């Protein structure tokens, strides 16, 4: 057993060198987006805006999305901001770590680079050990800089962002990163194909997110949320109680999972996974006749998985729609927010929940809307931004194929560039409809069984409120196509824009920004049903913008060198 880790530190130095740009960019962007926004958000979110925001997020659907609200009793800026942002920032750090570990373990191995490294006088576990140490160092840097940045950002005013809380926030993010690094290292042992490993890791991430949602939604099942690092992290209650116990649990988990990954590495062969590759068909099926067919064939499992995932996610929210009625009936802020336009809410004061619901529904139905409808509209917006991530992956697959030097093989086989790219774009565009429809149907299917009054939510309304986002999604796909055609090295930009859109969607629901700010993303131009009406002219304009962006992307793709991304 001696010498298994030989020369790990040399290798770590080499990995850190390779990371000096990528990880630095991740960390700097995170610092800017999370801590850099603090002063601006502090002015935007005054005490009353915070109360309003808290009520919005106390709604069961939002708890499922962002976790429970702990900041209600003492809504200092720091407490509210950290509370609402934690799950999403932690998710981002998780994604950063998935990429980090895959890059240095399985991807290197599949590309044949690891073999060269292994031929050097290194221990058998040196590589995975070095990758984990690299993750430790990078997450450590993130934790410290993030903690300090939050503390400094919080000095603008009465934010109550103390040094201890800020450091806990930073360390919490770093430790969440470590858990995902260890999980990814373990999953990297399963398959020899980088893409599969990546898929396993992201599915794990999403499952852990959903597990947290289930635990957070049901107070008597809170322990379920503690299974997930994303649930644990929230229990630190940064700037409120500053609990450290979740950190220790997560560090322990990291150690156990990493040990399992080390063990599997030590017993498997290089270039192999725990799941062996099975022989396949000797002939190409009917899909392998055209370039778009190939593109679909390569991604069909991913597409199916994501559609099913969105259906389940929609169903999860459908399940909480029933609770929402009673929630609205008993929450004053929501009454103002939602019922305000339709009735005098003071009549509800002091009424038992049942009666309040009845009165409320009466008022709403006089206006032709239901509480369930209002929330399905809300949720569909969030789901649209989440589904967008998949659409971006489908579109940028054109670039990753090019990077792996496979595009030229297909183009050399008498396929026009337009047709080649069209396969990727068509899949993304059609998926935009599929994903939105899947969320709507999932929500409808579950809601009809849980709603006291199933007629409150009609299938046509749910579909409409989901599909109304499709033109905005197409615009985002169009921007991605343009990047692939014109600036293939800068496609990462679209992820930043997605993050920004999500952020706007989250904080834009209470009117803290001037309306033009919300309109800096295509989603800001989507009517929120049923409060707003569909304007077919703006819809048509959006579709036209999407077409123009896409066409421009094709134009430039036809004009540029292929494989330029590798240099």
């Amino acid at each position: 057993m001696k010498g298994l880790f030989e020369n790990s530190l040399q290798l770590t130095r080499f990995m850190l060198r390779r990371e000096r740009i990528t990880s630095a960019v991740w960390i700097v962007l995170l610092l800017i987006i999370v801590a850099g926004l603090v002063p601006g958000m502090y002015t935007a979110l005054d005490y009353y805006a915070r109360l309003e925001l808290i009520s919005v997020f106390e709604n069961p659907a939002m708890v499922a999305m962002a976790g429970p609200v702990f900041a209600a009793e003492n809504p200092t800026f720091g407490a509210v901001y950290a509370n609402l942002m934690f799950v999403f920032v932690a998710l981002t750090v998780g994604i950063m770590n998935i990429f980090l570990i895959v890059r240095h373990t399985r991807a290197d191995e599949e590309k044949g680079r690891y073999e060269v490294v292994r031929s050097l006088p290194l221990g058998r576990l040196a590589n995975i050990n070095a990758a984990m140490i690299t993750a430790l160092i990078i997450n450590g840097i993130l934790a410290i800089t993030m903690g300090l940045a939050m503390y400094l950002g919080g000095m603008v005013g009465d934010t109550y962002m103390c040094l201890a809380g800020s450091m806990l926030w930073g360390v919490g993010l770093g430790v969440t990163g470590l858990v995902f690094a260890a999980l990814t290292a373990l999953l990297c042992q399963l398959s020899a194909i980088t893409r599969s490993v990546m898929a396993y890791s992201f599915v794990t991430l999403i499952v852990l997110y959903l597990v947290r949602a289930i635990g957070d939604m049901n107070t008597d099942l809170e322990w379920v949320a503690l299974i997930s690092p994303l649930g644990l992290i929230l229990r630190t209650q940064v700037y409120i109680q500053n609990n450290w116990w979740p950190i220790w649990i997560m560090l322990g988990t990291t150690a156990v999972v990493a040990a399992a990954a080390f063990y599997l590495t030590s017993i498997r062969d290089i270039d192999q996974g725990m799941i062996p590759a099975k022989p396949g068909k000797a002939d190409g099926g009917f899909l392998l006749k055209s370039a778009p067919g190939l593109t679909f064939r390569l991604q069909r499992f991913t597409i199916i998985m994501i559609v099913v995932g969105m259906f389940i996610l929609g169903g999860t929210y459908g399940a909480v729609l029933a609770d929402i009625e009673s929630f609205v009936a008993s929450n004053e802020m929501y009454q103002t927010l939602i019922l305000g336009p339709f009735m005098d809410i003071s009549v509800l004061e002091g009424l038992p929940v049942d009666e309040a619901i009845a009165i409320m529904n009466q008022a709403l139905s006089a206006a032709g809307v239901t509480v369930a409808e209002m929330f399905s509209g809300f949720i569909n917006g969030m789901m649209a931004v989440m589904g967008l991530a998949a659409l971006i992956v489908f579109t940028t697959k054109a670039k990753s194929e090019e990077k792996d030097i496979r595009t030229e093989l297909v183009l050399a086989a008498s396929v026009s560039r337009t047709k080649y790219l069209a396969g990727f774009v068509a899949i993304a565009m059609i998926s935009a409809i599929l994903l939105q429809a899947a969320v709507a149907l999932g929500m409808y299917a579950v809601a009809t069984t849980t709603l006291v009054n199933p007629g409150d939510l009609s299938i046509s309304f749910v579909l409409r409120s989901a599909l109304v986002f499709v033109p905005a999604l197409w615009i985002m796909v169009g921007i991605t196509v343009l990047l692939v055609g014109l600036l293939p090295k800068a496609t990462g930009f679209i992820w930043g824009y997605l993050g920004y859109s999500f952020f706007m969607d989250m904080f834009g629901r209470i009117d803290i920004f001037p309306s033009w700010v919300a309109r800096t993303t295509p989603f800001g131009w989507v009517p929120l049903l049923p409060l707003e009406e569909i304007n077919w002219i703006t819809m048509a304009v959006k579709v036209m913008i999407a077409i123009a962006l896409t066409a421009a992307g094709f134009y430039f793709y036809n004009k540029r060198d292929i494989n330029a991304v590798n240099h």
Partner: protein
Amino acid sequence: MSLSVEIKNLNKYFGKFQALKDINLEIKEGEVFAYIGPNGAGKSTTIRTLLGILQASSGQVKVFGKDAWKDAVEIHKRIAYVPGDVNLWPNLTGGEVIDLFVRLRGSHDKALRERLIRDFNLDPTKKCRTYSKGNRQKVALVAAFASDVDLYILDEPTSGLDPLMEQVFQDCVMEQKNKGKGVFLSSHIMSEVERLCDRVGIIREGQLVEVGTLDDLRHLTSYTMTVSTERPIEGLENIEGVYDIAKEGYSVKFQVNTDKMGIVINHLQPFGITKLESTPPSLEELFMRHYGATS
């Protein structure tokens, strides 16, 4: 006879770096042309320009009389391409990839496909990620030779093949050559080039330094001569074009430029030749000379 490839004043820049400098080249249909040169000379860059995957910075590139960039799709119906480093989709099997490429090129000769799979000793049911480098190359080669095309563009297609498979490959090329199909072959394996090719082009640092048949190229260089005579040879070193003289008793070994051969034989005659051997330079030596000129 019409031209399959016609390159005029081709320049290619990557940013400020000039990868191809004023390349001029014509290849006839049905010709087997070898394109050789040191690493990084610009062979793959030329080939990718021929395929319309890279756009020429200036100059003209035509394949079958059509513009390589604008009419790429039309041209590709008549060509098959095999790169040296074949990257395939890890989740597809070799058989699936072969069918894909053959169908995209618009041909479907099932029997030929089966025969080639057998000749190349390939298991088409394996996932591409489990293939060795040589086997991945075989997948691309089978897909190329199973397609009915007029020009094969091969960029170091055999860098991973074993000697047995190298033989199968050469047979395939000969078969196509006999059918009148053209081949554009970039290779570092000189024996392969010597055996298969009608003409050779040598590229160095982006410049096409030599084009011609093997014999043409030999004319430009020198032969190695070994001579034994009855009397010791004198005055050889005074003849222009003779060098690297090594005497060993009555036997002398030296290099002589091809055009000075007659003069040298005349000079040797009076010394009473008992044995005379002249060896043409091997392609390998030719290239060493051209490649070596860099430094």
